């Protein structure tokens, strides 16, 4: 980027290299000189999208669809109907899906069973049986709440189980991460302000989420709004309150009810690890589950290749990375792969499928495993 600024190379000439970057930001964790690569990457995206524009479809989806609750709700309902009517099985069997490009077909096959969110958990504040240890506002995310509403529900129950009073604020919106990754800073800023304003109400101790990628965006709201005087301070307060679910659960401790079994490994979300800098909490939680054998994943800090929408936009490269990742998984030969972000979750499901391991290895969000060990079920 410095060389672009100095005119030694053009923005077009660096485009391919920059676009192939996963944005996993492991380089920041590794960097001895504290280079803020995230900012460099974002400035590239911004310059690039100002020069050429984000493709219209992508822009519409990111600007309007994700923050639109009604639309996301409809999407969830129709996906659910697609699965419920067993149209999905029919479509797969009849090879109707063959008309889709490979990358979309690959993901259609691993789309999780869509569940409707638990209305009761969302509409009323959840109060623990004993004195609340903390007052928590829960951040649901947009895509997460379509594909993984169940994980959000379980997170809320676990937080309550650990002694938190949990509220789901209606006014919350999309975190703005995907828009920011594609260079649309303005939309991200707008969403950031809406979220900050929404969560300021109610005087919560923490804003908690169970989505590595969204959490990373939320903790960078202070950077995003640094040059807007009326928001900078408010953003800082918001950032300080923002925590990944694993941090709070590990801090408060869980009361496990059930003896679990098997070898468990953990694929951290890059943005949880490298941006939110959360590394110890998920591992400590896993190690504390009775009965399981936790085995660290070799090169676990290497991105799985999901990287937002990278696995759709750069399908081939993403699959090369995934195949390397699965080689490391094979070394551990786990019964369970634990993830901490929906993107990684789907990618690992795809990896397991590509290796033909569906019958032997299950992929779960850390919250699912913890809930199971605590005897909390979804219904």
């Amino acid at each position, binding site marked *: 980027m410095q*060389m672009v600024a100095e005119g*030694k*190379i053009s923005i077009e*000439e*660096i485009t*391919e*290299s920059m676009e192939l970057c996963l944005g996993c930001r492991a380089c920041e964790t590794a960097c*001895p*000189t*504290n280079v803020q690569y995230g900012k460099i990457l974002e400035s590239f995206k911004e310059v690039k999208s100002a020069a050429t524009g984000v493709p219209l479809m992508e822009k519409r989806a990111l600007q309007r669809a994700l923050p639109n609750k009604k639309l996301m709700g409809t999407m969830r309902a129709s996906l659910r109907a697609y699965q419920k009517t067993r149209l999905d099985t029919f479509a797969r069997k009849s090879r109707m899906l063959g008309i889709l490009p490979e990358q979309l077909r690959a993901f259609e096959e691993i789309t999780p069973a869509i569940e409707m969110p638990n209305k009761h958990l969302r509409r009323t504040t959840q109060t623990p049986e004993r004195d609340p240890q903390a007052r928590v506002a829960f951040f649901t995310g947009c895509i997460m709440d379509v594909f993984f509403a169940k994980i959000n529900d379980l997170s809320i129950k676990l937080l309550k189980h650990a002694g938190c009073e949990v509220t789901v604020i209606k006014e919350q919106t999309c975190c703005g991460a995907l828009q920011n990754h594609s260079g649309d800073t303005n939309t991200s800023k707008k969403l950031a302000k809406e979220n900050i304003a929404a969560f300021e109400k109610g005087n919560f101790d923490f804003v908690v989420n169970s989505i590595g990628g969204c959490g990373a965006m939320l903790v960078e709201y202070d950077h995003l709004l640094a040059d807007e005087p009326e928001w900078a301070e408010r953003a800082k307060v918001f950032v300080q309150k923002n925590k990944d679910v694993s941090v709070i659960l590990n801090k408060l401790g869980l009361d496990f009810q059930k003896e679990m079994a098997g070898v468990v490994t953990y694929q951290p979300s890059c943005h949880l690890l490298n941006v939110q800098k959360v590394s110890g909490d998920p591992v400590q939680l896993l190690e504390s589950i009775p009965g399981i054998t936790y085995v660290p994943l070799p090169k676990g800090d290497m991105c799985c290749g999901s990287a937002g929408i990278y696995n759709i936009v750069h399908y081939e490269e993403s699959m090369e990375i995934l195949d390397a990742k699965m080689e490391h998984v094979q070394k551990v030969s786990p019964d369970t792969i634990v993830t901490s972000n929906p993107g990684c979750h789907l990618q690992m499901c795809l990896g397991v499928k590509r290796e033909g391991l569906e019958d032997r290895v299950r992929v779960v969000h850390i919250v699912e495993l913890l809930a199971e060990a605590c005897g909390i079920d979804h219904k």
Partner: protein
Amino acid sequence: MITEQVVDRLKSIMGSEKRILMEKADLVSYSYDGSFGAYLPEIILQPISTEEVAGAVKLANEMKIPVYPRGRGTSLSGGPLPVHGGIVLDFSRWTQTLVIDPEDTVAIVSPGVITADIDREAKQHGLMYPPDPSSSHVSTIGGNLAENAGGPRGLKYGVTKDYVLGLEIVTPEGEIIRTGGRTVKNVTGYDLTKLIVGSEGTLGIITEATLQLIPRPQATQTMMVIFDDIIDAGKAISAVLTSGILPSKMEIMDQSSIRAVEEFQPIGLPVDVDAIILIELDGHPIAIRDESEQVKQVCLGVGAREAIIARDEESAERLWKARKLVSPAIVRKKPTKISEDATIPRSKIPEMFRRLQEIKAKYEIDLVVFGHAGDGNLHPNIITDKQDKEEMKRVEKAVEEIFTVAIELGGTLSGEHGIGTMKAPFMEMELGEAGLDMMKRMKKAWDPNNIMNPGKIFPEKKGQKLVLVND
């Protein structure tokens, strides 16, 4: 010139076209290193076998195309800079071989292996690979061998060349030869191993190395000694090293580097002092406990304000982290860092500090001094901005004077970074005309067409001066 025909032939030599890079973005990415200046290569190859290297070098020799071997580009002397364009051979992909043989206590490595990984693997067998350049978690062993890299542990354990038993080399004419072997004792013929190590990629390309490992010390103990006067720190170094104890590391940080680190990432170093020395002792836990008490008394005896022995591993790690943070911390003030490694005999350390202070005042430059004090290998770093042409002129003069002083005091231009591009003009000053000529004749014998890393070590024309700004 790399013609289309040359590219076609390279494609047939390389096992995969994916490891041939020619895009503008790639050329730019390979145009610089950790030192100064940027030069575009014409093509980059990423070999992962000796045959690929031999094939590419043979072709380059036939067509008289310059070849620039490169590890991970952390060089502080310009070793991998493609100053005359041509081919860059990037060895960072060739990490496949890292075999430890605990019975022979050797490691066999391919050139792209990361230095710290060798020590980490050796540790599994209770062994150690001692050379530890500060960039060891990034740098490749190939680059370390080519530059004969040092590091803090050099004080007790020596440098890269002291741990090389044998090499496989591709000569500038594309022949594959082996030097040395896997035994400590080996006097068969000339010691080409030692000649190649530190030849900065000008005599051949290392494609495999057999390295000596040693038993790993059981324990380490770190201490920090604080001084109100940096000259006293110099005296303390000599006093400790003549007291019958040989620490594994003795690192000095002057006031500017301490303050820079504390501003960058507060670690709790004392900022009201003139200098600190970090000392590490290694060996049997009982022995080093006793030795650290002795070292403490010796330092206090020559005027140290205080000597603090690290309580546990965690506080020891924090102190060494402070030392590692010096380089990143000092560049926050101004963007350009000119890092020197002029090295002087131990007894001259106090004198060198005095002369550096004079140079700093005379040329009004930001000069920070830290480094491996125990072996006289100091790192005077000039912090400047290459856009400021007037200041850069003063910097040129200051650098020249640092070299002159080092040689006057019986020292050398470079302790561990290598000569590369920037120090080439000063070679004759240290070696004399006949000494430099003998080196040139060896280069000519090995590389008659001057294709192997041309533009390094030797001044390209008589009376060449150090130039940091282009008018």
